[in-house]
């Protein structure tokens, strides 16, 4: 049984085994004794719930349910300033490895992206699902895919942070009635720089037009894109303007086929809500559309550019608790305005674990010693856990935490 599933995972490719066997020897020492049948014919020492493919581009439906490991250096580059959910991150620190499950929604998006005609307008994907079903994790997976395929990454880890816990806000000097989030904008630019550090050196990424920040500070046409980023980081006053410029440039550059861009925004529905914690100097609470940082990100999710992809997630948790709408569907969460803006999009639903995924997850937890209680490894124990957590990924984590 185990031999068959591992064989399937390898797609019968013995060469891959040989290539990966060196990387994989470290993991072999942690093969558990408890419930796993021994791996038989194959020389592959990985247990059946682990995937050999650590590269998202090579993930296929036969990897579904398996865990793949993200290299620490990639994790540092991509997710240093956010992107991996906090609870999961703590778990990764405990297990000393970052292992994500390969699930259907991510595979679906990557599949579409592989077969998209990038000459057309940028496709928009909207991830939706109940709380704890893996929207953020799917986005992290897709982000990794984009990174591997040399996309320029525009990533907002959790948009509501800007509106619920702003670092600092001040009235915008240039636009009347708007409020700036200067420090948050700088933080985002640093995040962008970190994620795209390997691409910003590319000479193709040069500015298409002049950008005038003030009388003396101008970024000329043909300058590297990195200059705008540096400008925003160094001059806090112009950070939001830099973001606007940057995103506009990326749209143009993608159109000109000088780069391809992937836009990943988590908690997109907050942009169309009514409330924030941000106040004007006159202590008036304002909606997100009056915050300057909103518009560039709403703009880049439009369909007026090509050679890119936009992946957005809608979550009820993005709203303030009192305003939560108790629905997980895009229409309800985006509201009429947001839906108009995002329509047409491809909806991708994230669901609770299937039986197979649940089984693999439990096996992974057992192997990592997360579940110590011996009853949880038994048939009845698993049934009970499945029933109580309803096979919801987040709930399963919570339920197994004290066990």
């Amino acid at each position, binding site marked *: 049984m185990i031999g068959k599933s591992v064989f399937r995972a390898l797609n019968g490719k013995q060469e891959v085994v040989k290539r990966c066997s060196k990387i994989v020897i470290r993991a072999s020492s942690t093969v558990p004794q408890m419930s796993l049948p021994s791996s038989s014919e194959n020389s592959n020492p990985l247990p059946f719930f682990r995937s050999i493919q650590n590269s998202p581009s090579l993930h296929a439906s036969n990897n579904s349910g398996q865990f793949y490991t993200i290299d620490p250096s990639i994790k540092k580059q991509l997710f240093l300033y956010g992107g991996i959910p906090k609870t999961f991150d703590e778990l990764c620190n405990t297990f000393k490895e970052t292992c994500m499950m390969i699930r259907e929604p991510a595979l679906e998006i990557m599949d579409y992206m592989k077969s998209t005609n990038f000459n057309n307008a940028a496709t928009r994907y909207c991830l939706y699902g109940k709380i704890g079903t893996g929207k953020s994790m799917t986005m992290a997976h897709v982000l990794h895919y984009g990174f591997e395929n040399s996309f320029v990454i525009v990533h907002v880890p959790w948009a509501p942070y800007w509106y619920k816990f702003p670092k600092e806000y001040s009235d915008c000097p240039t636009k009347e009635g708007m409020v700036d989030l200067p420090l948050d904008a700088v933080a985002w630019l640093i995040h962008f720089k970190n994620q795209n550090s390997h691409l910003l050196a590319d000479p193709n990424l040069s500015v298409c037009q002049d950008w005038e920040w003030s009388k003396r500070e101008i970024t000329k046409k043909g300058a590297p894109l990195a200059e705008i980023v540096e400008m925003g980081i160094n001059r806090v006053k112009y950070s939001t303007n830099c973001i606007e410029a940057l995103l506009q440039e990326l749209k143009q550059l993608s159109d000109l086929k000088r780069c391809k861009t992937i836009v990943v925004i988590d908690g997109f529905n907050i942009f169309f809500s009514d409330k924030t914690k941000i106040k004007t100097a006159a202590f008036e609470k304002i909606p997100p559309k009056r915050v300057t940082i909103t518009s560039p990100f709403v703009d880049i999710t439009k369909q007026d550019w090509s050679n890119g992809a936009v992946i957005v997630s809608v979550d009820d948790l993005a709203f303030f608790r009192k305003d939560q709408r108790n629905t997980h569907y895009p229409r309800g969460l985006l509201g009429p305005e947001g839906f108009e803006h995002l329509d047409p999009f491809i909806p991708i639903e994230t669901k609770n674990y299937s039986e197979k995924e649940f089984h693999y997850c439990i096996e992974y937890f057992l192997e990592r010693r997360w579940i110590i209680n011996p009853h949880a490894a038994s048939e*009845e124990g698993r*049934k*009970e856990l499945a*029933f*109580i957590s*309803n096979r*919801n990924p987040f*709930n399963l984590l*919570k339920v197994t935490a004290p066990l």
Partner: protein
Amino acid sequence: MATTMLHKHRVSVLFSFGRSLYRRINVSQGEFGLQQKCSAYSRPINTLSASEAVAEIKNMPDESRPMPAKKPISKAMKAYLLQAKNYDEFMKKQNTEFQIGRRHLANIMSMDADTMTQEDIDQAIEFLFPSGLYEPRARPMMKSPELIFPPKKAAEFDESGRPYHSLFYTMNPNFYGLLQEAVTEYVNLNKEEDNMIRKRISFNSDMKIILSGSDWLSQEKLSNLLIEQIDDAQYEQFKNVMLRLAEHPLSNKVKDFIMKYRYSLVNEAALAEIPKPSYEKDGRAYVTFKGARRKNAYADVTVHMPGTGKFLINDCDIEYFQDIQSREQITFPLIFTALLGKVDVTATAIQGGTTGQSGAVRFGLAMALRSFVDDKMVERMRLAGLLQVDWRTRERKKPGQPGARRKPTWKAR
């Protein structure tokens, strides 16, 4: 000595050496008395009427017993005897009225007067005289006079003032007579035990009475039974003596005697019938339990078997309950009966909060699962506390206090 049926005024003759006979003189017709014990030293019991017995005693030419001097009966004695006689006559009259009333009622309700039971009478009265009163004892009733009028002791001493009961001067002859009887039984049991040990007959647990499932009569009930006021100390004494008797290894022999003073604790859950499952069109068996309650919540639970472990509450899955304790409560009956994953559960819950609704669903689920499980498992469920309605509700706030128990802040002055 053979047992005899009590007639109207039976006379007991005194015995010696503390082997006492006690009887309860009941004035009503048709009541039979308790079994009597006679010893070899006793005189024969005569079934005579009082007047006859008195005459006999007077005329008895027994030298050992000196003839009482012919004294005139004292006024107090006369009054006492008159009172006893009046009571007898009163009860007789009430009885005839009752019988006549029964016949009338049978006529009205067109029932057969001879086969009419007390239950029928009660139902008829409830129908004819409907009452909105809460207290059952205040509602109109028609019962035989013995049940309505409190029983009174008959003449406790004869005209000469000589009490019939040997323990009369204890003021509670029936009570102390009972204790003495218990002691007698105990001594007998001891003798039997000695015999058994001598003959090397082994003891087993069947010879000892099982007291569980019943409890001692309350002080009030015991008082009514013995027609005497029993105080707290006496009640304790009674319990101690009877318990001592019950703990004897051969106490099953006196089971009848002990059980007279115990009432059985009704076990409703065991008596309740387990419903048989109905069948859907596709042949699946299902059972619905309606009206499961916990706190302010009501739940109806339907269980389908065979199933795949689905759970629906108010058309949502188990995530309807967000806290883990509620989910565990619902899982409890399923794990206990090992039917998790083998049945489909559909529930609707209204009112109440999280704990109330999940508790109601748990109870409903357990009650519904009884039909799919064998008797031994049903008993196990009962012992686990799954088949008992949890009557605990929020305690009301009392006037003059801020809460149910909280009192106003105590001030020193």
